[in-house]
């Protein structure tokens, strides 16, 4: 279903290619969490089981892509700055999101009553989504207003067209991957629910 992720040739060294995985995966993570928000609101408004399963599946895949973002960011960082971890704006933001939505999955796992778990998760999904811009701004200000600018900025501000194209291609690829995972996962959840009833 998903076509291969082939990073284009880049003029900077090979490690730079990780950016082609790193940046699109954070975009897809944001997409996933936006879907969680919409599905959560839909569930609370209309109690549709399908909306709940969509929220659940999207959160799982979102956490997956967030984890991927962190991992690729870390791998990129090691040879570039000599350290596995750095508190730059994007990694920090993504880590906070990672833990927030991990908490979402944890909450779902710990409530036995399906209907209550779905409701609470929906509320959490809404809170978390509205929190994302707050996280984004606070971390960005935290890093850029008080630190010397030698740290990596969230992304180069002007990029040659080829790189932009490559990023968009990978974004499209990842989005397809996301859709694939979510539909598969949602179907599994539906089968599980039917088996129980």
């Amino acid at each position, binding site marked *: 279903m998903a076509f291969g992720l082939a990073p284009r040739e880049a003029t900077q060294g090979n490690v730079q290619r990780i950016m082609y995985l790193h940046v699109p995966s954070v975009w897809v993570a944001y997409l996933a969490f936006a879907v969680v928000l919409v599905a959560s609101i839909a569930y*609370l408004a209309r109690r549709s089981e399908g909306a709940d399963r969509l929220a659940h599946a999207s959160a799982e895949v979102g956490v997956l892509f967030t984890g991927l973002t962190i991992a690729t960011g870390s791998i990129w960082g090691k040879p570039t700055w000599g350290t596995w971890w750095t508190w730059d704006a994007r990694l920090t933001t993504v880590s*906070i999101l990672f*833990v*927030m939505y991990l*908490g979402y999955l*944890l*909450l779902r796992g*710990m*409530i036995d*009553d399906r*209907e*209550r778990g779905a*409701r*609470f998760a*929906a*509320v*959490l999904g*809404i*809170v*978390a989504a*509205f*929190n994302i811009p*707050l*996280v984004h*701004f*606070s*971390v960005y*200000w*935290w890093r850029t207003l*008080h630190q010397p600018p030698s740290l990596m900025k969230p992304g180069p501000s002007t990029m040659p067209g080829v790189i932009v194209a490559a990023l968009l291609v990978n974004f499209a690829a990842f989005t397809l991957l996301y859709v694939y995972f979510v539909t598969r996962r949602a179907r599994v959840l539906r089968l599980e629910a039917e088996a129980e009833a």
Partner: protein
Amino acid sequence: MVVWKDLLVERRSKETLNAVFFFGLLLLFLFQFALGPDRERLAGTLPGLLWLGFILSGLLGLGRTFVAERENDCWEGLLLTPGDKSAIYVGKLAGNLLLMLVVETILLVLFGFFFNLELAAVLPALAVVIALGTVAFAAVGTLFAAMTAHVRARELLFPVLLLPVEAPVLLATVKATEAVLLGEPLGSVAHWLKLLAAADVVYVAVGVLTFDFVLEG
């Protein structure tokens, strides 16, 4: 009405206030011992420590918001009353705000005492920052306390859920407190204050709108 009831219960049992107060005191001592008497180092980390103290004490207090409701199924009883359940949320929020502000005031005074701070001049500005931050914290905390009230590992899940969500608030308040303690005017951290205000509005709105769904069940 809810606030009246909670205050009465608290006055009779004094459980929560005592627990939170002693916990805060304990934290204070721990900080002293952990960081040693080096004044320079202390001064730099002070805003962070202060808010760490507020938040950890707050976690303890907020987590217990609905503990009285677990006796005799009063939770169900609350659900059964006709009318808008958001009023219950606002009531609980007000009670929690009161609790946190009292504890924060005491902790602040003790901090000033132990670390020899000159607080008089910056008090109004500090009060603004603390008020904004506390509302953000209590708003989400009350909502999450309701959600985790019936979960098995409540004491574990509550902080796990609350802390990541409060991360931006923590950043904002520490940065703003830092500036205020250094004597800078509030205007210099206006962006942080706006963030806090926005967070306050968003959190309380979401809390009011979704509390119905949380109380059910």
